[in-house]
């Protein structure tokens, strides 16, 4: 099974940012796939170190796991299904991560908006 496109785009979003992350801890983002999951994780300690795993990193401070359809929906500019999302750990850190690398983009700017 190939690496979910969402995780590649997520990684690109993290790479693209040139501002210091101002986060501390490890955030893991996963996509359920092929009866298991694929995980991207970023460790923040001034800089960023990212990695890819087939298991959730044991030391993750916060994690978010999406179903395949929600990961596909996100990259296509559609809404996720809330019941398809699992979270755990330090949710405040997770929220800061999502705020840090997310962007408030209006739908017309994304889905077919080019």
């Amino acid at each position, binding site marked *: 099974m*190939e690496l979910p496109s969402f995780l590649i*785009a997520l990684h*690109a979003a993290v790479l693209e940012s040139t501002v210091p992350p101002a986060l501390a801890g490890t955030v893991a983002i996963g996509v359920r796939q092929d009866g298991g999951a694929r995980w991207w994780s970023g460790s923040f300690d001034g800089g960023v170190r990212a990695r890819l795993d*087939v298991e959730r990193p044991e030391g993750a401070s916060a994690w978010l796991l999406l179903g395949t*359809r929600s990961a596909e929906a996100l990259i296509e500019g559609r809404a996720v299904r809330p019941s398809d*999302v699992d*979270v755990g750990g330090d949710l405040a850190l997770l929220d800061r991560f999502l705020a840090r690398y997310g962007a408030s983009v209006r739908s017309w700017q994304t889905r077919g908006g080019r």
Partner: protein
Amino acid sequence: MSKVGAADPAAVLKSFSSHLIAQLESRPVKDDAERAAAIAVAKARTESTVGVLLSAAEVKALVAASTAIGVTVRQDFGTRVTDADFAACTALLESRALDATLALANTKAGLSALRGVVAKQGAVKAKLDELTAVPVDDALRARLWRVLEAEPFDARATVAFVMHELGGADVMREWMGTKESTSLGTHTEQVIERYAKERAFHDVKAPPGVRLEPMLRWMLTLHDIGKPAAVEHGDRNMQHAFTTPVLVELSKKLGFSEREIGLMRAVVDNDAIGETLHWNVNRDLDDAAKELRALAKEVGMAPGEFFELQSLFFVSDAASYRFLLERIFTTDERGALTLKNEKFEQLRARVAGE
């Protein structure tokens, strides 16, 4: 895609893509020289970040082989962040026929939107704690499995188990907010009884490691467990948001495997067939097929096989409501329920890619 053999650790490391960074974590090693050699080989062959990817099976083979020499090799990207890394990501997205710029913008917007989803998990979490608080020990686990594996299977037995052994009596007595004024417990029994009648007409193949019959019986027992909580919360549309975490947490505690839990979740947490056939919703066939194919991919099943399992669940659930049984089903010469609406077979064909 890079090919990795499972047998020879050195071969595994050598074949590890030059476009991946092999990160070696210290572990107790058999031999320092072996470990040093492995690290040297891996480092020599790692230049950039993303490019060639390994399949899940290949990653497992790689991990197993590297463990054999006392180290763990992981795919890693971003250790050295460069413009080339970003370019590799966008190139990979483009290679999948995605507009990388758009995909990136959508992903950022999605990350932002996920903040709202995470914030709402609070209400669900409080209810989840209430429904999954019962302590589970080996004896309780064994009693459940005796119920689930009993032949002939008694629909009332699992509902009674949830009511009396898992503290779910109040939930099972609640009204589900549907047209028919049944309790959750009664509806659940009716669904399992319908399932027992229809089971023989569906050739459902289980993925490896899945204990199919007990899993299906348990899945049906909990398939609406969060519905009363959603009604109480004031939004019946949130039924899946309440049901899924309870199904997942209780199943973990009661000894189901990750794979079984993932499969139960995928089947219960979608309305693709119902929304396609519903006279008011009238969901687009391609959209519904896309969701079901994504779910099949998630659980590692062929799309057509997943559809068969999904349709067994749909028939068992929908036909338990009398008004639906009379309106959307007919009975064929075998005695099996079949759907009158031709969109059902059209959906099957699109999911299976026929």
